[in-house]
């Protein structure tokens, strides 16, 4: 596969530059470029994922500098799956925005491609500092997208979003600096070896560095108590951007999973499972805060944003178990929650645009255009998010409960997940009945500026729901793949062999 590993990063970068330089005046050409590029990404990442499912992890050395001196990209089952997930989500978002949203501001498609580049890079890189750089790339693009077609509320939320993330970036550098100062390397595979053989005197600095990094990743993943930036940002972002941001929180979850199984995982000696005491309690509080927020929300968009926090908590609960079963279940829920969050943001936007002057406030309004059809879509999205059968959220939560069954944390995980699911159902049920049922008896007229409803956004939203249904139908093969992902994560020698070769592995003591 070799050189193809770098394509998911290079392709959007080149296309983004082309869009800015060559076709910035022609929205139709921009759309063609952007959609074609995203389609190509879906195809390439699918091939990469099929390759990764049957082969050992593979490494691509940028500029052919050998590891650990140069920067490497690593394709293993986890990174291949995340890249595929990103491109499928990206396709839905770009289709949704290509009818109308991309005309509300400049350079939507260029920023969108840069965002894909940053996210794919963060998933593929095998170097901690390079992870920082790709975090910055995806954040810079996200700042632009967040402020797309600005407005006072959006600027206010955008300002807070930028400040929080800049502070997070500073902390990231502090953590990276501390880790480098005692290990002398930033290559993740090499770090795994160095951390296992750390001198006792340096252990405290390394531990502090590792925990600062954990804090940064948790900011990205919106874990309580550093989740406060998410509701304002997501609720005020343009709908397709909020849908794309569904993958941004997953970048945080991915980084936790990668660094705290590979570098600070079972082989790390004194530093083994560094993140374990922190993730699970924080995640359980996150689920509670998120789902209570769903009930308390007064606007449709903040309701969906809080449900994203809840689903991040659920997913990190599973990852926080740090067992192969937990991680496999968590990853299934990760796939599901990405699609269900994206679908709900898109459906919410369809509803809001048809409600005219009533906007996204959860008050009754007269019946709007296509109310019945959108009610069906909202219903499917909501039962997915709440984790009710028969959609994939149910399977995901069932797997998480099953994974937690044997541990001493079972009572906490079971009670929190089950009770919050009920709270979430109440929240979505209330919102749905206000939006769709009670409207029948309300007199009045809805004033919309532009009553021309394009079909493409509905197709994109249905596509996201279709992905959830596909996750349900193919739950067997997907779970088999995810078990492979978890096995690979726990057998870190595969990753190290791919990056550094067999010689380094001997030093690793396996």
């Amino acid at each position, binding site marked *: 596969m070799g050189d193809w590993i770098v394509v998911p990063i290079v392709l959007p970068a080149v296309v983004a530059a082309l869009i800015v330089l060559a076709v910035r005046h022609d929205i139709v050409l921009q759309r063609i470029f952007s959609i074609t590029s995203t389609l190509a990404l879906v195809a390439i990442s699918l091939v990469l994922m099929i390759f990764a499912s049957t082969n050992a992890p593979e490494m691509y050395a940028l500029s052919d500098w050998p590891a650990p001196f140069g920067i490497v990209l690593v394709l293993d089952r986890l990174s291949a799956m995340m890249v595929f997930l990103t491109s499928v989500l990206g396709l839905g978002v770009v289709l949704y925005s290509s009818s109308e949203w991309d005309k509300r501001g400049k350079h939507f498609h260029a920023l969108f491609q840069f965002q894909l580049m940053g996210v794919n890079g963060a998933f593929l890189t095998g170097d901690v500092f390079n992870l920082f750089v790709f975090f910055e790339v995806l954040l*810079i693009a996200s700042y632009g997208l967040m402020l797309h077609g600005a407005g006072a509320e959006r600027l206010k939320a955008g*300002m807070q979003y930028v*400040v929080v993330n*800049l502070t997070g970036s500073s902390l990231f550098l502090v953590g*990276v600096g501390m880790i480098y*100062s005692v290990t002398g390397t930033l290559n993740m595979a090499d770090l795994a070896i160095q951390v296992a053989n750390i001198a006792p005197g340096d252990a405290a600095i390394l531990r502090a560095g590792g925990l600062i990094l954990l804090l940064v990743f948790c900011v990205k993943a919106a874990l309580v108590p550093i989740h406060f930036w998410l509701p304002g940002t997501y609720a005020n972002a343009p709908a397709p951007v909020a849908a794309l941001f569904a993958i941004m929180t997953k970048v945080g979850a991915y980084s936790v999973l990668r660094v705290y199984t590979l570098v600070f995982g079972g082989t790390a000696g004194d530093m083994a499972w560094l993140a374990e005491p922190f993730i699970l309690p924080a995640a359980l509080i996150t689920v509670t805060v998120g789902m209570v927020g769903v009930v308390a929300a007064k606007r449709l968009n903040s309701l969906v944003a809080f449900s994203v926090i809840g689903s991040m908590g659920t997913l990190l609960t599973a990852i926080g178990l740090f067992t192969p079963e937990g991680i496999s279940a968590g990853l299934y829920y990760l796939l599901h929650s990405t699609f269900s969050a994206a679908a709900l943001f898109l459906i919410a936007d369809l509803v809001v645009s048809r409600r005219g002057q009533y906007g996204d406030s959860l008050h009754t309004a007269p019946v709007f255009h296509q109310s019945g059809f959108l009610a069906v879509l909202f219903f499917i999205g909501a039962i997915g998010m709440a984790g009710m059968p028969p959609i994939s959220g149910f399977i995901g939560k069932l797997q998480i409960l099953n994974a937690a069954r044997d541990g001493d944390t079972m009572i906490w995980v079971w009670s929190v997940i089950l009770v919050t699911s009920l709270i979430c159902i109440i929240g979505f049920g209330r919102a749905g009945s206000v939006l769709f049922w009670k409207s029948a008896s309300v007199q009045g007229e809805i004033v919309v500026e532009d009553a021309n409803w394009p079909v493409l956004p509905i197709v994109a939203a249905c596509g996201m729901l279709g992905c959830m249904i596909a996750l349900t139908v193919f739950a067997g093969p997907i779970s088999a793949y995810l078990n492979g992902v978890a096995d690979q994560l726990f057998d870190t020698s595969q990753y190290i062999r791919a990056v550094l070769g067999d010689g380094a592995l001997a030093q690793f003591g396996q």
Partner: protein
Amino acid sequence: MEFLVASSIGLLTTCGTYLLLRGRTFPVVVGLALLSYAVNVFLFAMGRLTINMPPILREGVTEYTDPLPQALVLTAIVISFGMTALIVVLSIRAFLEIGNDHVDGRPVGEPSEAGDKN
């Protein structure tokens, strides 16, 4: 020298954190800038403090300074410079659109029109 560098990092971080927690955008921007200075000096120090040494590693050279933190700092400076420019523009834009320069979009103790919508 260790004391000087360590205390200057500490001072920069303290001032940066204090300013970051202020309510108006200008102190917040200055606070972020100070914080990024502190981080840059910190990254430098992580390669160990040496003076007048070449950043070279080859046969015969036993005394050298670690070149990697310098490369990291260079990257960090470029990124934080760009970010500072962005947030300056953003806060001016926010000031023009919202009509005041508070991070929350309203002066302390004064509910905004949008306040009850959240």
